[in-house]
């Protein structure tokens, strides 16, 4: 007995939905950033599942590139968060509603 492919896709959809929910509900800017990473992970899972479904290696190559871009994005995003914290002394996005102080 094997696992149907659609289970993987549904799991990926559930994880993506939870990531969207976290993105909308969280108030801490770092937690919002982590929800973003969760969404990227969910998309990666469906990429790997589709790569298996069509027997194409390009799906896994794409996941590789997504991980590379996610690493770059995390570095720059966390640097921006450090900047914001230095200027506002808060991580709550409700307090970060002005472009300029």
């Amino acid at each position: 007995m094997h696992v149907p492919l659609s289970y993987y896709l549904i799991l990926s959809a559930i994880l993506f939905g939870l990531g969207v929910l976290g993105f909308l509900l969280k108030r801490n800017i770092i937690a919002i950033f982590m929800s973003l990473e969760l969404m990227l992970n969910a998309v990666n899972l469906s990429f790997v599942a589709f790569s298996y479904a069509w027997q194409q290696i390009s799906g896994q190559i794409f996941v590789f590139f997504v991980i590379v871009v996610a690493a770059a994005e995390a570095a720059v995003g966390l640097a921006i968060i450090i900047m914001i914290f230095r200027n506002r002394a808060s991580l709550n996005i409700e307090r970060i509603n002005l472009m300029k102080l």
Partner: protein
Amino acid sequence: MSAEHWLFFFFAGVAVLGALNLILQRHPIHSALSLILVMASLAVLYLLLGAEFIAAIQIIVYAGAIMVLFVFVIMVLNAGEEERTSLSRVAKFVGLPLAAVFLVEVCYVLYRAWPSEQMVVPERFLGRTEAIGKALYGEFLLPFELTAILILIALVGAVVLAQKEP
């Protein structure tokens, strides 16, 4: 129920519970640790799909490097518990049901589009690391080289953004 089923359902459950915990925890460090749990269990699911190279870099790069960066920043900024602010009415009564409807709809469409007859059979796995290396340094050589420039720009950008003001 075979061993494959048990592995899938156990790690899928761990991933979903970890994602739920990420949302429910109010301290960012707890969210970060549950995100590491989600990533580790996703690595096992990649192995079940036959993508061994992706599983390895998921652990090394994602759960290792990127999440260490997150934990570092949480510690450096000394982030405490997030303040609880009330959701707006629109978000509570329209947004959350719409999010649930979206989720159910996506699951339904995926379930219809990919009937459960198609199984993941280990004999049909393709993702050996050798094949990925050949594709990466053959067909995808230009994008691969471009990511080097992207990483360099991100490195310079992060240093410039995070440095102390002169």
